[in-house]
């Protein structure tokens, strides 16, 4: 069975020099789509990506990453809206490249769809009351 999941990888500084992602493709036949990357040799690295492949291989790949010292988080909760701070102005709507925000037509409240969010972070600084938070 095929699986496709979006994950956040935290690399300790000791392994940012290693070709970790390449091995995911070569050894485990997984395909990856990098959403966000911040990896420099000798520093802690961050990689947000969508990883797909046969479930058995996917699990082995994740095991390989964990054993290599990579900390893995699920992406689903990474961009979060602070419901108290959100004023439902709508400034985020045209900023989001994947249309994760929409207006509820009757109330004109702003809806945020986690499923469409690719954690690009554009909304975080563009939100006037700073209601969007990036959690890693």
């Amino acid at each position, binding site marked *: 069975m095929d699986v496709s999941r979006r994950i956040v990888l935290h690399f300790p500084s000791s392994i940012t020099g290693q070709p970790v992602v390449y091995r995911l493709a070569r050894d485990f036949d997984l395909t990856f789509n990098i959403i966000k990357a911040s990896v420099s040799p000798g520093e802690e690295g961050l990689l947000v990506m969508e990883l797909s492949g046969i479930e058995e291989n996917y699990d082995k790949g994740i095991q390989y990453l964990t054993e290599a010292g990579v900390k893995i988080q699920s992406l689903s909760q990474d961009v979060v809206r602070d419901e*108290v*701070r959100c*004023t*439902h*102005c*709508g*400034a*985020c*709507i*045209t*900023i989001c490249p994947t249309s994760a925000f929409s*207006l509820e037509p009757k*109330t*004109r*409240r702003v809806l945020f769809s986690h499923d469409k969010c690719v954690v690009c972070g554009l909304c975080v*600084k*563009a939100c*006037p*009351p*700073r209601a969007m938070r990036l959690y890693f």
Partner: protein
Amino acid sequence: MSKTIAEINEKIKNGKVVVVTAEEVIDLAKEKGISRAAEEIDVVTTGTFGPMCSSGVFLNIGHPRPRIKLGGGKVYLNDVPVYTGLAAVDVFLGANALPEDDPRNKFYPGEFNYGGGHVIEDLVAGKDVRLIATAYGTDCYPRKKLETLINIRDINEAILFNIRNAYQNYNVAVNLSDRTLYTYMGVLKPNLRNANYSTAGQLSPLLNDPYYKTIGIGTKIFLGGGIGYVAWHGTQHNPAALRGDNGVPRRGAGTLAVIGDLKQMRPEWLVGTSMLGYGCTLTVGIGVPIPILSEEILQYTRVSDAEIFAPVVDYSEAYPQREPDILGEVSYAELKSGRIKMEGKDVPTASLSSYPKALEIANILKSWIEKGEFLLTEPVAPLPGAESGITLKPLIERPIEE
């Protein structure tokens, strides 16, 4: 048919007043007809909730022992500088003020995560605020340094005094250039890929009283979750702006200066706000009740988004260069549909002003009046109308001769 404010106040006291929001009145006027609606409805409540930069707070922090003269000295609240050109312990905190070590736009676009507007929100929320002051010392005010926490509960006065709020209509901002712009109207994508507007439209106070026939100096209002008053016409008040046949301005026109006791306001209605690449400001909640004194007043309040038009302005060239050119006009109904047609393009729209919050304000004000907690006031003087000759003057620069 005509009513007086005194008669409406009697109805409020007797629990017989009929109050509707500026949204509800649109359908009611259609249903009942102008004459019957004007007869039955006593008050129409309006609301707006958007970033309003010309906002600030006067504080009197009380005299420490020994005394200090902050006037002429330097004072910071949570590292944000306040104005000290006043007497010993009075200061003014402006919504746009920034900590001196904020990098501003040195790392473009600057984030502006904390400034005067945020200090105001923290004060209203009842949080302790760090006050650090230096002064020059006098015989009667010997102290030269003061470092203390202050809290809105303990200081003598905290007065919100916003010199320009509740703009009667405003620009729709777009960007014709090929690079992203970071403006007070939000992030504007290149090549006309978005259009930002900022108004409550059919709910907005001055769009429901276009000729200022009921809103004047002394009008009691909802301000920041508490009670406030219209203090004066706001700065840049421009009653002579272009108007439609319905009297509604088609450009930025009237403004309000408002005042109120910050101590009885609420942080959810005074929100510290950061505009990427621009600066800090305060998002302010204002609601104004409009007494239905005549059919004419009701006519004005039944205005709907389809009948209010705003100019579309290019913020890459026309706005910064102060050119009068506009790209066209669009109605708020079009803007609220999520897309407008401009220069042959289908342009997505977004608002900086919150319509759901504006509606909430209009409903809160409605409930205050219905419960008899809020009586209307008679303005002590009208706001200047077109006949005043007031216009919006540009600055004509003149060389300084030595």
